[in-house]
């Protein structure tokens, strides 16, 4: 059956004579218009393609096409060691790299049975880094909201503030994104000297900056008209579609894994789970801004612990069969193994050299079995399903990325609405295509 038989007469727009086309379409009674949006459209957050069927300006059908950024990370990891896997997962959801790393490492640690032996200082550093990352990720979400709705100031503000966080990441890990900082058993390197002061400065600046953002957007009539009662998705819809994160909390359910199923000692930090019950784009924005403010509280508490009771503690598991043999240090040629360690393995201990070589090239073995570890990423529940066959490489790693699942809600939030609201609906889902396609 041809498309003409099922769909009626079809007019393609593909470089022909416009006058002729306009004449033909004017004669036709049909008003249905199929518009292809993306994959290279600035408002689709990376390479997302939407196929919209329009009746006038109303969207009657929205179809999402993904896969343009599929890189086979999960397959690639099956050919690397467990530690090398961190370098791959960090590239999935590239706006929230620390969360990917942490979820993966928590799953590997559960398989190894060492969850309780990860040093407290490493846990506090992970928490602090994740919350910093949450702020930077939400800032991009809000910045792009603004830009896509036609306002450039929130975009400039958002990216300016995000730069502060990325500078901190660069100072601590050596990289602004894709840091591979969290490793099975701890973190790759301790906080450098001066990091606590720098984060302290950031904590002083940031509340004011968030307030500025709120002043700009919270009661802005243009912004609220474009976001209030737009892309409505209630709690029932969220549950059925598996939506988690700010979208779910904007539907009124205070479900946050940091509170409900705490990990890495989140139960010892004081913070609230912000919710809204408007189920719309504006509610999701408010939840995200409030979450940034809560994240600042957690960072402050973590920083107090890191500079107080946990000062000088180890950041990698004591077990020499798992923990990376060397601490990284900044040398004249960049970040690498510390000169002391090099002197030790090359100059004084053959056994240390063998141990280093074996652990770095061969890696450690992980007992056979499967584990699922999840963290509350900026976009919702980020789960890592990790299977081991007892070898030095992962047998299978699957990431349950919240962007992937949340993006399924797009037809439910767009169909029946205006085409202009599709943009704010996509922005409020805040999908990161690196995480969707992996």
């Amino acid at each position, binding site marked *: 059956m041809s498309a003409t038989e099922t769909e009626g007469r079809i007019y393609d727009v593909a470089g022909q004579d416009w006058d002729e086309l306009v004449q033909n379409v004017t004669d036709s009674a049909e008003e249905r218009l199929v518009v292809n949006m993306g994959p290279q459209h600035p408002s689709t957050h990376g390479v997302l393609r939407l196929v919209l069927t329009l009746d006038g300006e109303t969207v009657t059908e929205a179809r999402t096409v993904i896969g343009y950024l599929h890189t086979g990370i999960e397959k690639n990891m*099956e050919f690397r060691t467990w530690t090398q896997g961190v370098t791959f997962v960090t590239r999935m959801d590239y706006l929230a790299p620390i969360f990917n790393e942490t979820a993966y490492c928590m799953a590997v640690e559960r398989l190894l049975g060492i969850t309780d032996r990860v040093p407290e200082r490493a846990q506090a550093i992970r928490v602090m880094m994740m919350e910093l990352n949450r702020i930077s990720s939400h800032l991009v979400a809000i910045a792009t909201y603004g830009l896509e709705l036609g306002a450039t100031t929130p975009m400039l503000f958002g990216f300016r503030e995000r730069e502060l966080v990325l500078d901190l990441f660069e100072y601590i890990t050596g990289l602004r994104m894709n840091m591979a900082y969290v490793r099975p058993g701890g973190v790759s390197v301790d906080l450098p000297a001066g990091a606590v002061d720098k984060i302290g400065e950031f904590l002083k600046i940031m509340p004011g900056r968030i307030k500025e953002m709120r002043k700009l957007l919270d009661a802005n009539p243009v912004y609220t008209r474009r976001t209030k009662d737009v892309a409505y998705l209630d709690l029932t819809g969220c549950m059925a579609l*598996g939506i988690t994160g700010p979208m779910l909390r904007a539907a009124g359910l205070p479900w946050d894994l940091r509170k409900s199923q705490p990990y890495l000692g989140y139960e010892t930090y004081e913070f609230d789970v912000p919710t809204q019950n408007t189920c719309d784009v504006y509610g999701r924005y408010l939840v995200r801004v409030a979450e940034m403010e809560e994240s600042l509280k957690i960072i402050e508490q973590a920083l107090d612990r890191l500079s107080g009771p946990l000062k000088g503690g180890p950041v990698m598991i004591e077990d020499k069969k798992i923990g990376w043999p060397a601490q990284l240090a900044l040398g004249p040629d960049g970040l690498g193994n510390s000169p002391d360690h090099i002197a030790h393995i090359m100059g004084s201990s053959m056994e240390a050299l063998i141990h280093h070589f074996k652990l770095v090239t061969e890696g450690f073995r992980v007992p056979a079995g499967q584990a699922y570890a*999840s963290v509350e990423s900026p976009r919702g529940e980020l789960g890592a399903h990790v299977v081991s066959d007892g070898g030095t490489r992962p047998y299978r790693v699957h990431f349950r990325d919240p962007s992937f699942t949340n993006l399924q809600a797009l037809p439910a939030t767009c169909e029946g609405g205006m085409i202009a609201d599709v943009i704010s609906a996509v922005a409020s889902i805040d999908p990161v295509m690196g995480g969707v396609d992996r």
Partner: protein
Amino acid sequence: MSTENLPGLPEEPVARRGMFGVKDTGDTSGYGRLVVRRPPKPSSVRPYGSYFDEVADALEPAVGDAIERVVVDRGEVTFHVSRERLAEVLRHLRDDPALRFELSLGVSGVHYPDETGSELHAVYHLCSITHNRRVRVEAACPDADPHVPSTVSVYPTHDWHERETYDFFGIVFDGHPALTRIEMPDDWEGHPQRKDYPLGGIPVEYRGAEVPAPDNRRSYS
């Protein structure tokens, strides 16, 4: 060689023979005769501990015969169910007031080429918000008949997840509203996450030495 004094050999299928690639007369180490058998499929017995017993109690009266085995490992519980009754089990897990697993975290596939007769596994992670619990449900199907019933009617979120698992593993979810590829191009051949699908890649020259493609590098497991 007499085998009288040797312990009884396990029945499990052979996973691997030999080591270090030595064979025949060149093998002075004896490693060539090594026979590694796969460990038996794990199965836990009651009490499972934690909340797992309560979940099993609520499941057993209704769909107990669909559960093939239960595995409690590293603080997580896995119910292996027969694929024919999968949708029924999931519906029960969702609707029973004592279970209430409202939130599904999707489908993950795993390919075990050595498990003859149940090579492909579909793994479901479920979360109960009411009781704050998690379970894992696993259904297996043979490579020769890669069919598992679709559960989109129970958990609509499985729509994309089942498409992804079909795309990567070739598991056909019967009854899915539109089971097409989702990540790979529509005309792609093969299912890339299966173990028999090569990773690909080319050797790279670096400072005079050649680094082989990742799937041709030395493996230690």
